[in-house]
């Protein structure tokens, strides 16, 4: 009895670590997108992209004033969706 409990605990621990590692991977990818759309396209790359226009604005300007916000939105909903799936895969959903 004692032994099986130990095994279950260890299995739980391995599964918990795998779940957390998967979560960290999703977070990292999401944060790269978060950085690129705001700091990247909106600020750092703006001078380099000044030739590309979105309507009457240049691409960097549009990302700084509107575009990055749309990307943030998509990002949060995508993360929530992906995590719900991950929760079910690892059987840790509520």
């Amino acid at each position, binding site marked *: 009895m004692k032994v099986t409990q130990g095994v279950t605990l260890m299995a739980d621990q391995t599964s918990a670590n795998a779940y957390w590692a998967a979560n960290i991977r999703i977070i990292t990818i999401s944060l790269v997108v978060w950085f690129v759309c705001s700091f990247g396209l909106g*600020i750092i790359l703006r001078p380099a992209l000044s030739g590309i226009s979105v309507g*009457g604005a240049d691409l960097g300007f549009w990302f*700084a004033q*509107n575009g990055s916000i749309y990307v943030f939105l998509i990002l949060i909903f995508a993360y929530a969706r992906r995590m719900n799936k991950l929760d079910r895969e690892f059987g840790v959903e509520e």
Partner: protein
Amino acid sequence: MDQFTLNLIVVGASFALYIGIAIWARAGSTAEFYAAGQGVPPVMNGMATAADWMSAASFISMAGLIAFGGYNNSVFLMGWTGGYVLLALLLAPYLRKFGKFTVPEFIGDRFYSTTARLVAVICLIVISVTYVIGQMVGVGVTFARFLEVSTTTGLLIGSAIVFAYAVFGGMKGITYTQVAQYIVLITAYTIPAIFISLQLTGNFLPQLGLIGSYAPGGGDVAFLDKLDQVVTELGFAAYTADTTNMLNMLLVTLSLMIGTAGLPHVIVRFFTVPKVSDARISAGWALVFIALLYTVAPAVGSMARLNITTTFWPAAVTGSAFDGEALSVEQIQNDPELAWIRNWEKTGLLKYDDKNGDGRIQYISEARLAGPNKASADATKALTDAMTAAGLATEGVDLASPAAVTVNGAVDAALADLQKARADAIAARDAVTFGNKTVGELGFSANELVTVNNDIMVLANPEIAKLPGWVVALVAAGGLAAALSTAAGLLLAISSAISHDLIKGAIKPDISEQGELLWARISMAGAIVLATYLGLNPPGFAAQVVALAFGLAAATIFPALMMGIFSKRINMQGAVLGMLAGLVFTSVYIFLYLGWFFIPGTNMLPNTPAAHWLGISPAGIGPVGALLNFVVAYVVSMMTQAPPRQVVELVESVRIPRGAGKATGH
């Protein structure tokens, strides 16, 4: 019906609604008072979070900041929305799983230390109190302008309304009122924006209007190009001009983002949803409702900027500002459509002065006129000084002596040089061109629209665009809704830190639930009185304290929470010293430039880009403080003992969604 009666009806109706909700949603338990019984659906929580978050700064000030700062002030748009990504990914779901009521409580439990909890309480109170002052000032300004009462009366009415629903309803009352306030404020913000976008670009959606073409000009020119043409012609920086300090722009944006994610009154909103997955999706819904305002804000700002400029230079509507004359003083004083200028003039937020007495108000860049004006003034002064000196030197000297003749010749030559220098300086001043005319031809050398406060842009916007009276009244109600909803959220964060973290957590742990609820209400009432007092006697630094609030949230609370979740190794010593390092470094840096405790004149360095360390402004120092916090916490933790077993188990438990129950008070 006159404008005043309309304002009274619309604002009165919105207030009656808030009171009605307060009576319906009274809180009966501490769980309802602190976390609305954890029964708020995610979409509704998103809406309440949006109202909680969007303060007088978002509603009243931000579009004005963007209007006059252009692309550079995009930092507010990205910073105040990007923080929600960090909240959803890094904090909200885990803190909901933790299942307690306050931010200091998590820090206290995770770092097994009452000291850590109290340091967090101090940070929370400093952040929330500085923030609430701005809301109270916003309430006072809006009342004074639209309801023709004194600022004091306006503030007292506002405080009484907040008192009614916050003290009795707690988080439950606040949540449902915030939902109503969100609807009022978003309607008030978008309706005038749609009208104005239609007028200027023919686009129904302001987001498309911003990148659309300029309709009154025949539609051949992009709206943003038209705006750039008009403002640069007057000597101002182009609206789309690139930043001159990229490092600072990056850091200010980052500071606002991580500051947002570390603001206690925003974080606690995610304690109110039923499940961990709801906390994630709720951050998304919050951002949907925030984005409705934030994506419209640049259109509101840029269009208001064009409208106010063309009001003063009517010819700029179709061509160059200098094709016609500037707006006349007589028109400002008599035209019924320009009543807004007269009304805002009374509040002191807008000032004009016909300096050259030509009966017209020339709105032009003082900065561009300043250099040449100073050169010509300096040259005139040098000439006068030289003539005076020469006059004194010749007294009592025999002018016929050979020495005197030589001296006189030298003096005459020097005078001739100075006269030429003066003439050159004046010619240089007059040669500065605006549009295709020189200053000499235009005949003026000063900006006569002396003050246009950022804060009037949104509130005056419907009047500048000549929209109907009910729209104006709606904007007044919207401004009040934004300020009151944020004030209520902040007051709740302050009162729960006092009743839950200080009294129950540190002073009297065995207090009964009813006793704690009573203390929560007493501290809420106390916080409202303090906020009202500070609103009546604002320390005169409302703009600066925002830098402090975000900087501190970024440098103290955010790193502590993040390390608490993402590391099992950071211990009590590391967390406490890390938070203190972030707190001291960030506040000292801000105080060095803005004055110790914001007392005017006590700053030790001038607040200018040249004097800033690496060009980092006080508003951008938060991330550096956060980095310091991370480094100190890591190094100290590595040198001291690892956290005990039960803390490691706590961290493991918050990382797994399953098992999130109702929050408990222990």
